[in-house]
């Protein structure tokens, strides 16, 4: 596990550690079962192509969940993911890496919590942002 980040130590412009997840057909089947979304465009190539897609595509909601995982793994035991919002702007095809990134845009205290706002997004291997969004996490304070 990475070192615990503290509210005092982070600042605007700082990046959260990126997360790369290869979304192969096994991953998409696991997500279908885990989420309950069994729409066939995500795991049945013939079905996907019959709807006009080049191949199976990654579930938007999986990309949302991966952004949540990136944040969870960054904020550590002492932190919490408070909000993850994203828009599914571009398709990601099966068998490619989905790269999750985030950069801090603001930090503030509210209701006794140390909150950090970020721009978050997923990129495809060409660096195209397919899922832009925003997030809020709570971090622990060095003061306790």
């Amino acid at each position: 596990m990475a070192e615990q980040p503290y509210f005092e130590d982070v600042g605007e412009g700082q990046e959260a550690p990126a997360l790369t997840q290869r979304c192969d057909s096994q991953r998409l089947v696991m997500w279908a079962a885990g989420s309950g979304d069994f729409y066939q465009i995500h795991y049945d190539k013939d079905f996907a192509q019959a709807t006009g897609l080049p191949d199976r595509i990654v579930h938007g909601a999986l990309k949302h969940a991966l952004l949540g995982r990136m944040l969870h793994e960054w904020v550590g035991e002492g932190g919490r993911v408070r909000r993850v919002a994203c828009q599914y702007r571009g398709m990601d095809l099966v068998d490619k890496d989905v790269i999750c990134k985030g950069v801090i845009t603001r930090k503030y205290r509210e209701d006794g919590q140390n909150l950090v706002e970020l721009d978050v997004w997923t990129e495809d291997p060409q660096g195209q942002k397919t899922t832009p969004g925003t997030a809020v996490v709570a971090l622990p304070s060095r003061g306790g």
Partner: protein
Amino acid sequence: MAQQQASLITDEMRAAVGRESEPVTFEVDKTACRMFARAVGYTDPIFYDEQYARAKGYRSVVAPPAFLGHPVITPGQPNPLAAAYFRFDTGLKRVLNGGTDIEYFDDVCAGDVLTATSQLVDIQEREGRLGPMLITITEFTYRNREGKVVAKARGTGIAY
């Protein structure tokens, strides 16, 4: 718009905005939390190992971000949580998931009993590259047994 076109949004659709669904109560299932965590690729034991999660101060295995429990589906019957989904016949053939926005106000753990309500919060129409589009926003509110809101989820649907 210069040219008068019939709106895709009917009075019936407008009347559905803001109407809260019947509440649906369900338990956050431990196995479902683990399956979901595995699907997203989590390695943190708080999502898998109950003893470990308790030692870290949680009630049980933790529900990972984005997992708010599955309603119990009875085959042949509609998903009880989908009551607020946009179900009007618009003549539009395709639907896309436009986006997801989830806010968490408290931890959600296996064994928690949550009550969810949903409502259509907005409908808009736009002229897209592929013709007319209807954009709908549905909001789900999850409360725990004490009635405290633990999470709110908003989903954007795009019909075109």
